[in-house]
């Protein structure tokens, strides 16, 4: 696969896989409004993934559709980072994950508005407004929980600790990103790091929480198709209908 297509595929898979995870919150949120909120965030990400996957099918010359790419690739062909594939855990973990991921995506899409690829630039311009709202939503929750009761503070703090090992991977300059950045289509993930961290740092401080920095291990390999245990289960659920009943419609 050409670097341009592989790069866009990584962005698409991040959005697609996280959309699938967020959909799991429907009927599991702390309140019904939050079921709807996380479903809406997931829907935005799914929309971004659809546009990006369609572009991948054009860029790699295979003419595969969004559905071909979403439902008929195997685990090793997915290029998402490990952060988004991790199982749904506590609400504190989810808000920590959403705060970090949306902060990363805000910087990413802001930079990609200047992409040499007109389609990618268009998707980025549209998506930036959406992920800005996601980041605001996560920010509101982190403030509320961190600066809330001792129990909510503790659980929000725990969420920040649990996502930490998965963050470095978001900002890794893998060879595909480097090639895409050199061509003007993409941006270097490392160039997004400082601004994203700056936002999270301000939110965490205002929420009377502490930003953990020490971790004994970190995730790697997502962009090369090497995933963690939860990924296979996620794909099984996401893909089984399309694979068991090809062409199914309703």
């Amino acid at each position, binding site marked *: 696969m050409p670097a341009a297509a592989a790069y866009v595929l990584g962005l698409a898979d991040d959005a697609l896989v996280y959309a699938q995870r967020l959909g799991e919150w429907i009927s599991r949120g702390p309140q019904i*409004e*939050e079921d*709807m*909120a996380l*479903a*809406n*965030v997931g*829907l*935005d*990400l*799914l*929309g*971004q993934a*659809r*546009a990006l996957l369609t572009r991948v099918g054009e860029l790699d010359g295979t003419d595969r559709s969004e559905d071909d790419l979403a439902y008929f690739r195997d685990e090793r062909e997915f290029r998402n980072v490990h952060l988004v594939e991790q199982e749904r855990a506590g609400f504190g973990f989810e808000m920590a994950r959403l705060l970090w991921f949306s902060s990363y995506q*805000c*910087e990413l899409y*802001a930079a990609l508005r200047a992409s040499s690829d*007109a*389609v990618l*630039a*268009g*998707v980025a*311009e*549209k*998506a*930036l*407004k*959406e992920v*800005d*709202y996601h980041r*605001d*939503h996560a*920010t*509101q929750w982190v*403030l*509320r929980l961190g600066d809330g009761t001792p129990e909510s503070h503790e659980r929000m703090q725990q969420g920040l600790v649990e996502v930490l090992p998965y963050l470095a991977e978001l900002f890794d300059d893998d060879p595909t990103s480097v090639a895409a950045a050199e061509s003007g289509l993409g941006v270097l993930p490392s160039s997004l790091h400082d*601004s994203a961290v*700056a*936002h999270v740092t*301000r*939110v965490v401080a*205002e929420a009377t929480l502490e930003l953990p920095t020490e971790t004994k291990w970190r995730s790697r390999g997502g962009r090369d198709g090497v995933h963690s245990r939860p990924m296979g289960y996620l794909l099984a659920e996401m893909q089984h209908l399309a694979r068991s009943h090809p062409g199914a419609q309703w």
Partner: protein
Amino acid sequence: MTAVSTTTVPVAQAMADIPDPEVPVVTIEDLGILREVVVHESGRHVEVTITPTYSGCPAMDVIERHIAHVAAKAGWSCTVKTRLSPAWTTDWMSERGRERLREFGIAPPSGRRPVTANRVSLSLQLRQVACPRCGSADTEEIARFGSTACKALRRCLSCREPFDEFKTL
């Protein structure tokens, strides 16, 4: 919306009159979803360009099918293009559209929400939105995400009615 044509043709107007599937009191032109209609009278062909409100908005597929249906009914062939840039904004919503939303019980988008990558608002949010029923500004947000991607849920503290707000984008 711009209609390009040698003469005024009803097909362009028919496109502009297509209602939004979620909020049928407003048309896709009122919402600013309809960006361009190019009419080729010789071939009885019409090119329609639309722009989505949100990337994942499920109404876009319905709108596309509705456009094709309206064209076919009038005996025209048609192509529908989706344009992502410039990105849709609630600024494109017409005054008539805003008024109709209000009459329907949905607070129209107010003001402009600036989007910058570094914008940080760290306070719990308090915004003033007038109740579409009684006009009171004494309302509060119940949920930032409502029944559709484009709406938030609020309640009026004067008349006690809950209502949808079209989010400013």
